[in-house]
């Protein structure tokens, strides 16, 4: 009886030791994944921002291309914010997980904003593109301010 008890304890501990890092790895992977997507979005937003600010000449074709890619990338990001990734070290504030519904809603709005930006960009109307770009980055900022840790 005693031996059996010890045996199951040892096995239980073994399972715990093996699976805990595996779970942690999975959580860290999710963080890596979403940070990669965010970096990719930033990569595309950056030159559009430079055009809007007049730092580089406005190029409607390139703008439309970048806007299209942002709209493709935006829906991929939320996948990386799975609840089980909350244990991994990241720039996400703890309040994000308490307000997951609000966060998901904001993510949806962000996806909507990038989709609209990509659509407007097809028209080539510079003023409308700049205006819609403003709405998109406003959507970025809303979430960053609320849920991103600045250390």
């Amino acid at each position: 009886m005693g031996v059996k008890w010890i045996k199951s304890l040892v096995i239980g501990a073994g399972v715990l030791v093996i699976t805990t890092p595996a779970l942690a790895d999975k959580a860290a992977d999710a963080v890596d994944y979403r940070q990669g997507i965010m970096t990719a979005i930033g990569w595309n937003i950056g030159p559009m921002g430079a055009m809007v600010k007049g730092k580089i000449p406005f190029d409607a074709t390139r703008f439309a291309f970048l806007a299209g890619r942002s709209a493709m990338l935006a829906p991929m990001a939320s996948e990386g914010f799975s609840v089980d990734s909350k244990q991994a070290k990241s720039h996400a504030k703890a309040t994000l997980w308490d307000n997951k519904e609000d966060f998901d809603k904001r993510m949806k709005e962000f996806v909507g904003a990038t989709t609209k930006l990509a659509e407007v960009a097809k028209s080539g109307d510079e003023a409308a593109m700049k205006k819609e770009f403003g709405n998109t980055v406003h959507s970025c900022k809303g979430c960053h301010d609320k849920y991103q840790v600045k250390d």
Partner: protein
Amino acid sequence: MNEKTWVLVWDLPVRIFHWLLVSLFAASWITATLGGVALKYHFWSGYSILVLVLFRIGWGFVGGIYARFGTFLHGPRQVLAALRELASRRPTQSVGHNPLGGWMVFFLLLELLTQALTGLCANDDIFNEGPWAGHLTKAVSDRLTGLHHVNFKVLLGLVMVHMAAIAYHRFVKGENLVVPMLTGYKWVSASVPRRINLWRGAMVFFGAAVFVVLIVNC
């Protein structure tokens, strides 16, 4: 004590500095809250504040007598005396900044300088970054961005204490400090200071502006 007269305690450069700073502080706050595309104006506002602060530091050495650090920064004994005096319901007898207000000016300038310099190194993680952020690693820029945000809360706290003190002087001590900051004159017993040289003020301001243009573009 001398007879009371109208004394020019806040010279024109100090008054222009003060009210421009108030406007730009509000502008910076609003544009930071809006963020995104409006951050362009936040940058302009921040550069202008940096010019003003550098001007004020310079003016603290070569400005009118009541604008000088040497006149209004006092040691602990006077500060303690001013603290004790604070409880009385009489107007203060100080002509320029009292010893408490003087240190408030010092800390406000220090905080504004910190705010402006961390702002130059900051980024918004979307598409805006300060002119110095490109020279730094992302991690350092992020750290300074965090400091920029925390320091704003400290700065806002100081501004609120500053305004609360003005209200306290107005309603408890029966002393209006806002009107002198508009007109420059206070009804006090003090000898009338020498006239200040406005050209010197313009030169300090110009020097500060050129300096900021240079450091922003490097």
